[in-house]
């Protein structure tokens, strides 16, 4: 029995879930409103976009690369899509809207892949370049104005709720349809990374490129697919943000410039135990933890200007909490 517990505790996801649980309990003791269905719905709404973006950066990081431009790419794809549609007075099926955005984002992630895998540029710098370029390009070449007239069904999507719940105070909170997007995308990613040959190869490339090549893996091809998948995810996330926000704008402030939240979620979810390799479940827990903290600090009476500070402190606690079973490095003597 004891051994069983120890083994389960070795999984980073389990530890993260426990930390999450502890924080939920702590917050709920301070303000019972935290532990309500209504608040859960609010959490979903607040974390929807970041949760999906986190998947994009997660798969890229699992492959041992990096993408600093995912949020900019997603926002760019969505804004350009909306711009094209409104300029031409089009109101297509929502699937078409998503598709256009996805294709734009895939093309941009292809550019990232080209720089990282073909030109062998340092991923962080190259994708930061992409981000900077796009941030400016959208303002110079497309438009600077907000687009309030979204395609009708995308607008409708923003107002589609699955359920309603009420806080103790009587304020209503609704469960946004984006929860389905999150659930489906995380499930697909989980299956992809855990049960498919492709997922295994992504982890292999992430662990050691040269070793992966020796194993007969086409590293460039795997990375290409990884970046294209990131493109798909960004394309969806961008449109979803516009739907939830009910307007489209270049470089939305809650996404562009907040990439670190998604990246931190992935790192929290990966942990640094010997089993560290990144997973959809870990990322989800990381996103939930991050969003839960920043969402609820106000509810437990912490002034809003403390939010960033408290988030930082709690992230430290989260990371330290996961360190307990870091692999012991075999010293040179043991190794010999």
């Amino acid at each position, binding site marked *: 029995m004891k051994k069983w517990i120890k083994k389960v505790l070795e999984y980073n996801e389990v530890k993260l879930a426990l930390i999450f649980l502890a924080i939920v309990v702590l917050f709920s003791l301070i303000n019972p409103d935290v532990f309500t269905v209504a608040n859960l719905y609010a959490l979903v709404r607040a974390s929807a976009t970041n949760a999906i973006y986190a998947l994009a950066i997660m798969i890229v990081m699992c492959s041992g690369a990096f993408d600093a431009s995912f949020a900019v790419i997603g926002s760019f794809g969505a804004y350009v899509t909306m711009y094209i549609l409104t300029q031409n007075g089009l109101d297509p099926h929502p699937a078409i809207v998503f598709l256009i955005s996805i294709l734009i984002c895939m093309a941009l992630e292809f550019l990232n892949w080209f720089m990282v895998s073909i030109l062998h540029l340092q991923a962080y710098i190259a994708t930061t370049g992409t981000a900077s370029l796009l941030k400016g390009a959208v303002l110079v070449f497309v438009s600077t104005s907000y687009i309030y007239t979204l395609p009708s069904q995308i607008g409708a999507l923003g107002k589609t709720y699955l359920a309603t719940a009420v806080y103790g105070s009587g304020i209503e909170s609704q469960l946004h349809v984006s929860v389905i997007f999150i659930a489906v995308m995380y499930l697909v990613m989980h299956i992809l990374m855990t049960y498919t*040959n492709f997922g*295994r190869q992504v982890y292999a490339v992430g662990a050691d490129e040269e070793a992966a090549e020796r*194993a007969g893996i086409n590293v460039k091809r795997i990375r290409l697919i990884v970046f294209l998948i990131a493109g798909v995810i960004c394309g969806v996330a961008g449109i979803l943000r516009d739907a939830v926000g009910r307007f489209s704008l270049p470089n939305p402030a809650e996404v562009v410039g907040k990439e670190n939240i998604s990246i931190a979620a992935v790192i929290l979810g990966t942990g640094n135990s010997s089993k560290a390799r990144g997973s959809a479940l870990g990322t989800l827990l990381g996103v939930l933890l991050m969003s839960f903290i920043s969402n609820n600090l106000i509810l437990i009476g912490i002034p809003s200007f403390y939010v960033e500070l408290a988030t930082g402190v709690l992230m430290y606690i989260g990371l330290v909490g996961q360190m307990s079973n870091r692999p012991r490095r075999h010293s*040179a003597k043991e*190794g010999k």
Partner: protein
Amino acid sequence: MSMKKIVNIENMYKSFFGVVALDGMNFSMEEGEIRCLVGENGCGKSTLIKIISGFYPFDEGKLEINEKEYKSINPAESIAEGIQVIYQDFSLFDNMTVAENILMYSTVAGKKMFINNTNIKKKAIDTLKRINVSIDPDAYVSTLSVSQKQLIAICRALAQDCKLLVMDEPTTALTTHEVERLLEIVKELKAQGVAVIFVSHKLEEVLEICDSITIMRSGRNVYDGKTTERILSKEEIIYYMTGKQFSDKVYEFKSEGDIPLLQVKNYTLDGAFEDISFQIEKGEILGITGILGCGRSELAEALFGVVPADSGNVLIDGKDIGIIKNIEQAIEHEIAYVPDDRLTKGLHLEQSIADNAVIRVLGEFASRFGTLDKKALSEQKTKSLSTLSVAGLVPDNPVRSLSGGNQQKICLIKWLSTNPHILILNCPTVGVDVGAKSEIHDIIRNLARENGTAVVVISDDVYEIMQLCNRVLIMKQGRIALEKNIADTTMEYLEAALAEEKTT
């Protein structure tokens, strides 16, 4: 009956940017054969292996694998032909379990959309059983020891229906016991019909295990033969590898009757060594040997103050300084120590060769304001580097670009530039080929002879001690069991003394 040839290479040429790596190489392997491939660093061994495993295309020549001719071959095709290479770094994936690693190659080659984790685990357990290894298939590779990782790499090759296993320097990171175990496994593989190419620097192992030997020099095979027909002597192998005869002359040392430079009295560190007493004069080269765990490395570290001894005395130039308490104190008394794990800790791999060579003395070239005297420094660089011959040395290239043996030389030079009075070397030539070894030995001997440095060489290689030292101490279970002048003893005697359980 002629056996089926797994690999047959005839008259192969390969060059990189005008540098010839293979120059008319001939090589062949039969089923179930164990063949040792030996040669100095840079002789083309790695190139040959990389051509067989499909990483490099070749320029000219004939390549047949399983009696099928290939104009070019890629890694996937090579794996499909049953060729598996275990590289020195094992190429395992730290973020995966033992089972996932063992079956990784087949998972990739299987090209199935989904993977069956239960099946992977079952097959991994079967493979582990095949070489009688008990390692938890669910353990993550990052938690394993070096020798366990190697076993996993072997299992991974076997899980691939391997017909030819190439092992690149498989024994450098293993203890004597682990090497024995590995050799047993290799013999077991042979019994199962697997052919093995053993690339090794350690000639004892080469002679013990193989059916045949191919010796390479300058990109071609200079010797091919079966050990059943003729066993080469160590000297012959060295001759074929280097094209030079090495003398077996003992390092001669004549005492001038001075006060010993270093005297160690009753040195004791609980649990490591006890009651160690010896002395060493100017210009002496003293060897200390013993099996792993006899306390030899701990003694070396204690003398350099890394892990200070509990009790005893050290006399330097006859002056009692008690115990050497820390590294600063050791350096103050002009003691230098070259550790055994210098490849990981001893060099700044990305920095230039020249910078590495002078890093220990950098402080001497700094002005009061911390700026460096570039001109004097560059003279020192030239001076330091002139003491050794490194093939294709470009001082501004990173150390990483050098072969292992040459890196070792740079590491040694780095310490020598401090002109120590007492130099302690812990396994100075581990993983170095014979040519580089003899050059390193020359450097050490010159240092003792010309500068009067007292050198303590810790080594598990009796041959090296015979070549290099004028006196030897054998340590057993933390104590000195035997002391001999090299001139009065033989290699056989020392080896027998080492092998004995306990000498009283």
